[in-house]
């Protein structure tokens, strides 16, 4: 009983002590944020108007930009952080002027060094700075950073490579998506690849043969988004054979956007009722998008499908195919699917 009581008292003291500690921590977290914001504001206040002048493109004589280059010590660190933030918001001549200030401060060289820092936040910020400063010569370093152990660094490296826009980095960015355990999030990769030049069409084509489903999906999606017909043969293959349903649906949509007339047959094949419903729907929509009249007989048949949505999508597709498509609706005028599709098309036309 004595030991029990002692234990109880001890535990109580520990718990209550921890509670008090946490209260202090809450207050400290808030106080620190306040004081840090205040410090940064204070350091920035003499430089703020010069920064705004440069950023707004009103620094005709270059005096404000020059004033910015003089900053030293902590205020330079804070200023550089503000400049980097500003670079994400503006473009044109003012952006170039701000990059020049960073270069004079040595911030670009420092960022190269920071890419191997122990703190992942520093590594990530360094990568972003290099991208925002459009530091083309650091592309190989950024490509290495795509395989970083921290996801924020991988994300930042891809973001930077997208800003720099060098198509040479497209292969590594796409490949990084499927890296085991250290994958690059698909959304970041897609966004980076979006802003690279036309030189990436072959990379995307090859990416569609990758082992990783996410890589294939991003490659298929972007091929359509960027209108690279080079990838068509691969897209057809993915639609037919890919083990992943999402990849197949993406490929169907992509073929609808950039396919040729003869692709109507491929898409029609996958509207068969042995295929998953979501794929059949994607293929019917793609047929409408493709607009080739070879699909008319097949679409007309789908008007009788047991899935009302599939029938409505087919009717909508037929309505978009001119006289030949509309003619195929004969005999189905009273179908709810056809009436709905007609009504929606007329509403859209009326408001356009």
């Amino acid at each position, binding site marked *: 009983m004595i030991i029990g009581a002692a234990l109880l008292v001890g535990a109580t003291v520990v718990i209550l002590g921890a509670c008090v500690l946490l209260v202090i921590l809450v207050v400290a977290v808030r106080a620190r944020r306040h004081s840090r914001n205040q410090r940064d504001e204070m350091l920035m206040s003499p430089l703020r108007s010069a920064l705004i002048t440069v950023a707004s*493109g009103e620094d005709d004589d270059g005096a404000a930009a020059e004033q910015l280059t003089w900053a030293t010590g902590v205020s330079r660190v804070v200023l550089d952080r503000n400049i980097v933030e500003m*670079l994400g918001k503006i473009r044109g001549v003012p952006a170039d002027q701000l990059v020049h200030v960073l270069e004079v401060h040595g911030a670009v060289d420092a960022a190269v060094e920071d890419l191997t820092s122990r703190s992942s936040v520093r590594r990530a910020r360094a990568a972003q700075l290099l991208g925002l400063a459009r530091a083309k010569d650091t592309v190989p370093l950024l490509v290495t950073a795509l395989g970083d152990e921290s996801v924020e660094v991988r994300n930042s490296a891809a973001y930077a490579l997208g800003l720099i826009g060098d198509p040479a980095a497209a292969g590594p960015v796409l490949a990084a998506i499927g890296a085991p355990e250290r994958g690059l999030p698909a959304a970041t990769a897609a966004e980076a690849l979006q802003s690279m030049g036309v030189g990436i069409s072959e990379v995307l084509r090859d990416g569609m043969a990758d082992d990783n489903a996410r890589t294939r999906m991003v490659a298929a999606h972007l091929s359509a988004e960027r209108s690279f017909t080079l990838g068509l043969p691969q897209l057809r293959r993915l639609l037919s054979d890919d083990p992943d349903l999402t990849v197949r649906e993406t490929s169907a949509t992509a073929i609808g956007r950039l396919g040729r007339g003869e692709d109507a047959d491929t898409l029609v094949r996958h509207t068969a009722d042995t295929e998953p419903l979501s794929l059949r729907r994607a293929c019917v929509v793609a047929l409408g998008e493709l607009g080739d009249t070879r699909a008319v007989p097949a679409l007309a048949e789908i008007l009788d499908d047991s899935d009302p949505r599939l029938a409505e999508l087919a009717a909508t597709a037929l309505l978009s195919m001119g006289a030949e498509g509309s003619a195929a609706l004969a005999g189905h005028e009273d179908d709810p699917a056809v009436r709905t599709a007609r009504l929606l098309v007329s509403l859209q036309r009326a408001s356009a």
Partner: protein
Amino acid sequence: MSAPAGEPDASPVRVLVADDDADIRDLVEFKLTQAGYAVEAVPDGISAWEAFEANPPQLAVLDVMMPGLSGIDVLRKIRESEFPSVPVLLLSAKSRDSDVDTGFAVGADDYVIKPFSPRELLHRVNGMLARAR
């Protein structure tokens, strides 16, 4: 940049600028003030709406992404207000045109995508006011 006001003694054209990002707010305010506009800059959607109601400006520059009421929300309220025809320019971050689509659907007159060129923004503001007259 020359002052946009037509007559020399006319009071300056009033522009409402709403952006939660202090950098952009200050920069747009500075750019437009330099160009001779009278700018009221506010940090969020609700202040923008309150400022609009208190004293409707001749033009509004609204950031789409603001906490609370977004630029689109404010635009919607402006279009349903007593002064529905005030020209509105939306500032939107880089995107796949979706904000722009929504913005135009709700009744925006023009938009600028971030990162933007301050000079281009000014040209658009001048152009919108010229058209509005």
